């Protein structure tokens, strides 16, 4: 057991000394930030209703034509200031003076199709914002027109919170932050094992009172330990960003199980191929394959992390415990066959 801890200690120190782990953490931070920028960007263009909720954009819209249209009420309900103009030329004057953001001409409704006209400034960026804010009230008015024409529209009065951010956060960012450390752990195991093989230091190491199983065990434990530390770090960081992970202990346990599985799998790969080039290649391919395969499980590991982290009903410790099984099988296989694998010439 002493040898195991010696190797564990050596690996942690080596990673600490090289400081490249810092780079790895920065990478994860960049991925998370880029994703959230993408999300905010996409939301503002594709799901403008959330922007309307979150920002204080105050629009002034000139109305001309039918001043009694229910659209006017819809606009006001959406906190848009409306000003009625009898004469369109007055609206134009105010618009050029910069007093209005846009002008809407509402034709007198004779039933059926209403063909409105919307006057916008020529600037690109301003238009996007104006259309964003106008979208919800326009949709509401559209439904009112439909109903007036005898079209039965259901589910128009639902008022939940827009779920786009929530879903993206918990089904992409949180699992990504919990799984990327596992990916790093796998890469580290491959690097340190293939380095021993390629530099032929493995023979020296094994002539010391260290067994192959000790060595692999130590390296695995060190990489998984690092992964768990990173996951804890992310959990704390997310907490400071007001994103609370429910069932944090179970989520971390699941992340640790996955990290251990990936690390053990990559140890197997490195033991067989013994050089970095092929091992890393096979590792990258296999991790994509296994990740897609695991998607078919119910709940899948990633899905389980999502559901645990959001506090969804119906998942708990039993689901996590289930994933101990494949890990145990893999570990038993490796430790029963280490000598044979290391002796294989691939």
């Amino acid at each position, binding site marked *: 057991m002493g040898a195991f801890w010696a190797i564990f200690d050596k690996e942690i120190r080596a990673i600490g000394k090289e400081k490249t782990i810092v780079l790895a953490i920065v990478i994860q931070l960049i991925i998370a930030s880029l994703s959230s920028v993408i999300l905010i960007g996409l939301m503002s263009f594709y799901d403008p209703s959330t922007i309307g909720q979150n920002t204080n954009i105050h629009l002034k819209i000139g109305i001309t034509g039918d001043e009694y249209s229910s659209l006017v009420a819809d606009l006001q309900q959406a906190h848009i200031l409306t000003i009625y103009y009898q004469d369109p030329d007055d609206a134009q004057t105010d618009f050029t003076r910069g007093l209005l953001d846009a002008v809407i001409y509402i034709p007198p409704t004779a039933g059926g199709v209403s063909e409105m006209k919307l006057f916008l400034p020529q600037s690109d960026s301003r238009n996007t914002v104006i259309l964003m804010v106008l979208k919800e009230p326009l949709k509401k008015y559209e439904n009112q027109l439909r109903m007036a024409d005898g079209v039965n529209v259901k589910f128009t009065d639902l008022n939940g919170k827009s*779920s786009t951010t929530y879903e993206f956060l918990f089904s992409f960012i949180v699992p990504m932050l919990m799984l990327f450390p596992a990916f790093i752990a796998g890469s580290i195991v491959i690097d340190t094992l293939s380095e021993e093989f390629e530099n032929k230091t493995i023979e020296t190491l094994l002539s010391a009172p260290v067994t192959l199983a000790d060595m692999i065990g130590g390296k695995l434990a060190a990489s998984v330990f690092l992964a768990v530390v990173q996951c804890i770090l992310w959990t704390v960081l997310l907490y400071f960003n007001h994103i609370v992970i429910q069932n944090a202990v179970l989520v971390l346990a699941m992340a640790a199980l996955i990290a251990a599985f990936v690390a053990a799998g990559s140890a197997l790969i490195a033991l067989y191929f013994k050089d970095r080039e092929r091992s890393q290649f096979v590792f990258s391919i296999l991790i994509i394959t296994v990740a897609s395969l695991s998607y078919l499980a119910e709940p899948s590991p990633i899905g389980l992390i999502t559901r645990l982290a959001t506090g969804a009903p119906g998942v708990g410790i039993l689901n996590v415990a289930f994933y101990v099984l494949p890990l145990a099988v893999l570990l038993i296989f490796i430790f029963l066959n280490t000598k044979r694998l290391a002796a294989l010439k691939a």
Partner: protein
Amino acid sequence: MKNIPIIATREVKRFTTRFRGGSRAIILVILAASLLVSYFVASSGLTMSKGMYTVGVSPTGPAIEDSRFNLIGVDKAEGYAMLTRHSLDAYVDTDTVYGRNDDRSRYAVGALKQYLEKQELNRITEEYDLDQAYPLRIETHYLAANETTAAQGESISSVIGPTPAATPVPVATAAPGGTVTVTRAPVASPAPARSDAAVEAQLAQARNGTQPKFKAEFVSDNEIIIPSLMNPPVPLPQVIIAFLYIVPIFFISVFFTSSFMDEKTNRKLNILLSAPVSAFEIIAGKMLPYLTFALVVIVGVTLVLNGNLLLALAIFIPIVLFIFAVYLMVALFYRTYKDQTFFSMAAITFITGYLVFPALFTGVNNLSYISPLTLAVQMYRGESFGLVEYVFSTAPMYLVFLLGMYVGVRIFNEEYLMGYGPLYKKAGDAIYLAINRKHLFLSIALLSLFLIPAVFMAQLIILALATNIQQYFLMLIALLFCCALVEEIAKSAGIVMLLENRDIGSYKQVVLLSLLSAVGFLIGEKALLYLSLGILSNEVLIQAVTDSGLLIIPLAAHFVFTSIVCVSTKKLGTKWYFLAILVGTLLHTLYNVYNLRLAGVL
């Protein structure tokens, strides 16, 4: 030059010996299995948030076919009970949705709303005729926003036409209960077919997931907006297609870097370096087989996807060159195995972010042309783009490749490649080696100029990172500080390395070099600006300029800050460079804050 094919053949041989014997069969099997599994899973429909919400549905409730919802069929009483017990996130009755008042349940209702609205739209489209289903069409017009140009623009009254002698019948009254009743006059006008064509076109586009072109040419030059079809679809399918090209290229370039490492480990690189071949021939020779392979992949993917071959090559060749240039740097910079792993991860993250992130905004914002993948997305949407767009998005790729090759050739010597020094030292040495000591002044000016794309990319990343800071003012200050830091380092690094190696001695030289560095940097900035002008509308650009404070800093400011950094480094010695940089950056930040205050941003 004639040595390139020799080195290339040698590289192919090295590569094939790696994949010989039993391992080849195993790797091929793994590869095939992986492709099969990925295909199978992808075709079975991949949803990110599978089973995220648990929703109860009454027997009379709507059919919900969305894997985000974990459905449980229960009657109303049991549904209510489960909802209060927190065993359900929401409950759907015949035409109402029930939720609790906590966050989780409200998000679930929000998700249901989004889904059910879409279903309703589909149902309405099917059950009713076009005029009933889409009764609101909005024709957009653009008005000149200031008085001098107003005369040339459209006028509201001319667009509306002679106002119908309006005896406005009150068509809508808000009843006290909040429900709106719309009464209408008996149908008088025939259904206007004018905008029907636009509705049909947008419906078809919404179904195919292509970008709705609001400008329905056959109707008029004006966009017709239909509120419920207003969402431009995210170009996700096309971005995924573009990704099909990128992923294999990543794998190929990993082998390219591994090749250098392999030869470093078994000391074959030393032999190669002592042979009568130039550094360029070695790099080019080693790159050639992998480049060829990448080309084959591009052609193959394009043929499978039935794309335009010439266009695909024109778009993806610069991307391939860019990726190879980044990976060449990885290969030449790393010191240990773990270094290489992390550098590669950093490279993948950076490249993917830079290429994919802007492409998601294809058609929404012209800034998306930063990434050439935007061109690929447009190609697969059947849209066209101009030469200016092509140059804007691919020129940086070619430039980075040229810069990478140049730096690669300059630093390709045994001492550098085998060195184990700390990273900042390696970077400094690379800059020093890149400087031509026979033409010091020109080199420094060109160095600043050519570092512009790198500075620009670094600042984009800083921008993304800064969004993590919740407090707006703090974020802005951090952003300004970090951007100034990057710029100051880029401008002074070359001069400081010259000082370190005692190539220059007098203060006069330092100040003169600072001036040249500032000039080079400014020219680079302006070039970027003019290239952008062709792409972006003026307003967006001005916004971008004032937001970042990146492009308006005049020459004098650049010169002053760089001289402060370089002169104080000379005075204190290069080991105090970080202090000098800190001071220069602080002044630069203060200057930017002052400018932003003038512009009224802060």
